[in-house]
């Protein structure tokens, strides 16, 4: 298995929205390389014809009736908000499209 580079860690940190410091990139790159080296063993079974298990239980079709349940009050919903305005969550400018 290939090792993991500083640049890869930086790319992953961007995907994961983590503003890592430069020294953290080096630190994590070394550690993650070791960890990935250790866990890469799982690919021993990659070619085996075994179904993957995503859920430990063999449950299917767990559904609820389409019936309204009480919501939180807006006050409760907003109780943890770092900032609010007009009964809405106030967030910094969004660098979206447009």
């Amino acid at each position, binding site marked *: 298995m290939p090792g*993991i580079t500083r640049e890869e860690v930086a790319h992953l940190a961007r995907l994961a*929205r*983590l*503003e890592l*410091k430069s020294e953290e990139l080096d630190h994590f790159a070394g550690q993650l390389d070791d960890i990935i080296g250790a866990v890469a063993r799982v690919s021993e*079974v990659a070619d085996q014809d075994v179904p993957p298990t995503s859920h430990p239980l063999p449950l299917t079709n767990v559904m609820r009736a389409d019936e309204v349940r009480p919501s939180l009050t807006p006050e409760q919903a907003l109780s*943890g908000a*770092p900032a609010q305005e007009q009964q809405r969550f106030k967030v910094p400018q969004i*660098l979206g499209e447009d």
Partner: protein
Amino acid sequence: MIDIIKLTAAQTAEKIASGELTAVEVTEAHLARIEATDEKVHAFLHVDREGALAQARAVDAKKAAGEELGPLAGVPLALKDIFTTVGVPTTVGSKILEGWIPPYDATLTRKLKEADVVILGKTNMDEFAMGSSTENSAYGPTGNPWDLTRIPGGSGGGSAAALAAFQAPLAIGTDTGGSIRQPAAVTGTVGVKPTYGGVSRYGMVAFSSSLDQGGPCARTVLDAALLHEVIAGHDPLDSTSIDAPVPPVVEAARNGSVAGMRVGVVKQFAGEGYQAGVVQRFNESVELLKELGAEIVELDCPSFDLAMAAYYLIAPSECSSNLARFDAMRYGLRVGDDGTKSAEDVTALTREAGFGDEVKRRIILGTYALSSGYYDAYYGSAQKVRTLITKDFEKSFEQVDVIVSPTTPTTAFAIGERTDDPLAMYLADLCTIPTNLAGNSAMSLPCGLAPEDGLPVGLQIIAPAMKDDRLYKVGAAVEAAFVERWGHPLLEEAPSL
């Protein structure tokens, strides 16, 4: 005069029910104990003095009104700070949730309240339950009451330490890779990871959804069973909750026996890395089981050798997604919002400041394992390993009723010893992880002290899914035999704090 804090939960409940003690007396005794010892132990992140006393007063009022009390009414409990509690801070041991007061109760919290259990407060834990030592808490480590320079295990070190320090007779933990059982083992207490889906995850802050499971922690097998019965059961708010009756755990705990049972010992749970004293106490436990009438069967589970690797792909992958919601928009910490920065930047700065190293490591590892081009080799293969482990368990349980192993390869290590070596830290969960991957149930209970360091050793009992009662049946028998052999419960040998 009775020493309230040394009573078991069952005894405490009985004395409250009979009027010998009031719930307020019991609660005050434990609050006093916490006040006296927690500066040293640091088991609690938040003590809810007022809430606990209010709940205790309500129990006493019920009793006075002649209402029937539940089997744990008035018994104090230490709740891992991973379950939401209305009006009481829930931090998951992380800076990113510092000061967050949830507007809703976890199903488990609600069930405890409905059973009149007195919640003393929230216990310390590795941040987001990632760790095996509680050193990853953003709020400082917890000490092991047996030796305060040593770790109490993790992630639920606070809950286990609270029990061992006699701050509470009951506690709640969560177990994703061993976070209930390993702390129980290194603190000389009892901890159970129920069958996945046995206890609702609603309101339990997710680390790895397909592995996480809340469960009971106590000082005796019967107490664990009583608590198990209170918190278990189907919850329509959790799609992965099992819609079936709770296994008869209390009945099993009251009728401990291994006579005629087949008990498996897995070849793979041995070898390099296992401390001599741990192996010695484990072998004695196996001998004891034979003496008690069990038949010992040797088992080969080759897939278990890959369990650790699979776990360290699946858990980080799920956590990288579960923890994405901590983005500084709706709750929790917000860093860098100076009016010039974008939401994107504020999210990244907040996550950088709010998460500790181990959490960041796992988020990055999980992001890597799920990214295109690597998914099949890593996440996909890990899920295949999961299937193989489940099959090895199924095959084993055709031959035996339960499996036993050491809970963890070593006794409590020193605080700081493994913090710079994540891989060494991960070894603590070598024996506990296969059960999380397969979803079945397991218990850890004390089986003595390691001769070389005088620290507790845990015996793990593993049962098939939805056969949690077998853990209690075997556990109660083993516990009774050991207590008889030692002449007292193991915890009496712990130093007084």
